[in-house]
């Protein structure tokens, strides 16, 4: 309703302006005021935006922060971060505190599907806009901005279907992250579904390495011992995949085992593609996600609708990278992010 009124008011204003303009040609010389600009400019003024990631200090969180902070501050809002440093309890506590603190908008990066679902709902009921990023909880809030894990999984599986078909052993290994993380639960299903349609692909190992490169290395080493003719490997995150590629390199099988992984497309990914550690990379493009988050923030504040009344998702299109299509600028660099 409110929106209709706004639109009606805008139209009336527009008509009045037009009428005015027609009657006085002098006005054109002084230029016009864009009628949409004022609501846009004032939408974020004095608004408090808080980012609650699972942790700071890694490429995704730093990339998102940098992009969103700049936009919010440039538009007169304030931006704060609560860093629970990988502790789900601390994150839940921070969110509980935020609900009573009542900022205007919270960006939540969920550690898993369940932990913060109720709190997300509570925050929204308390009238705070909630944007969930990259890992969605089981409760959908105003907006979700992030990777489409189903598409990421399909892209990874299809890469191996392409590489490990006839003439190869067809043996593939999967290295998952933390099993309860949204990335893992939404990614594994589509992968196995694709593989089930291709009987030539045999999953010889499907293990979790808790996002830890050392664990990934140990289990990849064992898998390679067991299956020296391994054809491909999917790792659920680039930071963990370096462990698998170290094991593959040590076994002298770089280039023989096709390593597919995903991540935010930081420079480290391009470096590893360049050196042959990774063969194919599904990037969910963090700068693009930051700009999607900015769009969501601007839209929510301009809509003036109460929290929870509109629900939308902005899935980031995947960017598939291989060594062959690396260009300067294919990846972004955490080093070059502005500091404040």
């Amino acid at each position: 309703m409110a929106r209709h009124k706004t639109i009606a008011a805008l139209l009336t204003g527009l008509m009045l302006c037009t009428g005015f303009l027609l009657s006085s040609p002098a006005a054109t010389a002084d230029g016009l005021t864009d009628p949409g600009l004022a609501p846009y400019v004032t939408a974020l003024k004095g608004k408090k935006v808080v980012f609650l990631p699972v942790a700071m200090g890694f490429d995704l969180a730093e990339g998102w922060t940098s992009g969103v902070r700049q936009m919010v501050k440039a538009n007169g809002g304030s931006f704060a971060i609560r860093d629970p440093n990988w502790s789900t309890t601390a994150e839940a506590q921070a969110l509980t505190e935020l609900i009573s603190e009542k900022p205007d908008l919270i960006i939540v990066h969920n550690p898993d599907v369940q932990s913060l679902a109720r709190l997300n709902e509570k925050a929204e009921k308390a009238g705070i806009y909630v944007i969930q990023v990259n890992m969605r909880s089981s409760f959908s809030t105003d907006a979700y901005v992030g990777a489409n894990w189903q598409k990421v999984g399909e892209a990874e599986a299809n890469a191996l279907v392409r590489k490990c078909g006839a003439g190869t052993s067809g043996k593939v290994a999967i290295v998952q992250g933390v099993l309860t993380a949204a990335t893992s639960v939404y990614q594994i299903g589509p992968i196995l579904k694709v593989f089930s349609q291709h009987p030539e692909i045999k999953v010889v190992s499907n293990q979790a390495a808790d996002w830890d490169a050392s664990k990934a290395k140990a289990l990849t080493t064992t898998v390679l011992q067991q299956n020296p003719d391994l054809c491909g490997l999917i790792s659920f995150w680039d930071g963990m995949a370096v462990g698998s590629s170290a094991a593959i390199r040590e076994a002298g099988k770089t280039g023989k085992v096709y390593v597919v992984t995903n991540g935010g497309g930081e420079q480290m990914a391009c470096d590893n593609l360049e050196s042959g550690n990774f063969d194919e990379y599904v990037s969910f493009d963090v700068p693009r996600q930051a700009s999607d988050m900015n769009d969501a923030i601007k839209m929510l504040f301009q809509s003036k609708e109460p929290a929870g009344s509109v629900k939308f998702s902005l899935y980031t299109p995947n960017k598939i990278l291989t060594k062959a299509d690396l260009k300067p600028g294919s990846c972004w660099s955490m080093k070059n992010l502005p500091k404040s």
Partner: protein
Amino acid sequence: MKGWLFRRAHFSQERIVLAITIALFVLFSATLNRFLTSANLLSLLQSVSVLGILGVGMAIVVIGRGIDLSIVAIMAIPVAWVLYMMNQGVPVPAAFALGLGFSVAIGVLNGLFIAYVEVPALFATLATGAFVYGFGRSQLFNQDIIYLPASASWIAAVGRMHVAQVPIAVVFFAAISLAGFLVLRYTKIGRFFYLIGENYLAARITGIPARPMIVIQYVLSSLVAFIAGTLTAAAVTSMNTRVVNSTLIYDVILVVVVGGIGLSGGKGGIRNVIIGTLLIGILLDGMTILDVRYTLQNLIKSIILLVAILVDSIVNPRDEQTDQQGDI
């Protein structure tokens, strides 16, 4: 070999764990294809080498009736700082010297707190561990995972090296175990560690410099942790500081305790660490080959440990002495 097998009780925890280890080894060798190959056994050892090295450091402290909960933080943070400095263009030797200095400083700090301020080891090292992590992450660098710079790829090459088929990490594990064994068994300092662990007051009265010895213990464990960290970084071309918040510290204590080094101090040796490490290594390797679900792996691991502890407390009930001494 024969001596220790038949000395003391018939079923010490060490022998129970050794028996379980051998049983698992035989079981996996008989049932799993390609388990009993030298390549697989070496990779089995390789994957637990860092754990074993940390176990040696922990054992030195536990024998002296202490505990070092900061060992994982000391493994991760100084080495991550070294990588960070290398990324910033600091020459490699300088970066390593600074990182090593940092770890030794923390070891000294631990020792001073415990020996001179007489803070219980449990609390002192818990605090320094948190301090090292917090200080590193907030003051030294602000990244979670630090990657080895491309300019230092020779370090990764060293990490991939094999000495006569044996992976470098296993070589280091062997060397550090040997060094630990020699120190504990044949040096005065080593004997002092046992005496301090057995009875601190009596050791002091006899004129053993107990306090400096405790400082030395923690410096040694810090040094070992730094080596373990360097090996990890070379192996996976990065250092993940999140490992500080992981369950690795429990695994390290587990390797030490399950192998039969009592937390009450004065007992055990490097041999126990090796047995504990082998048990974990064989379990992990076998379950990975079997492609056991991850959550189920944790269950199996904990059941085997529980069995070992249960059997131990049934066949070796607490006597008056152990009761008075207590564990930490």
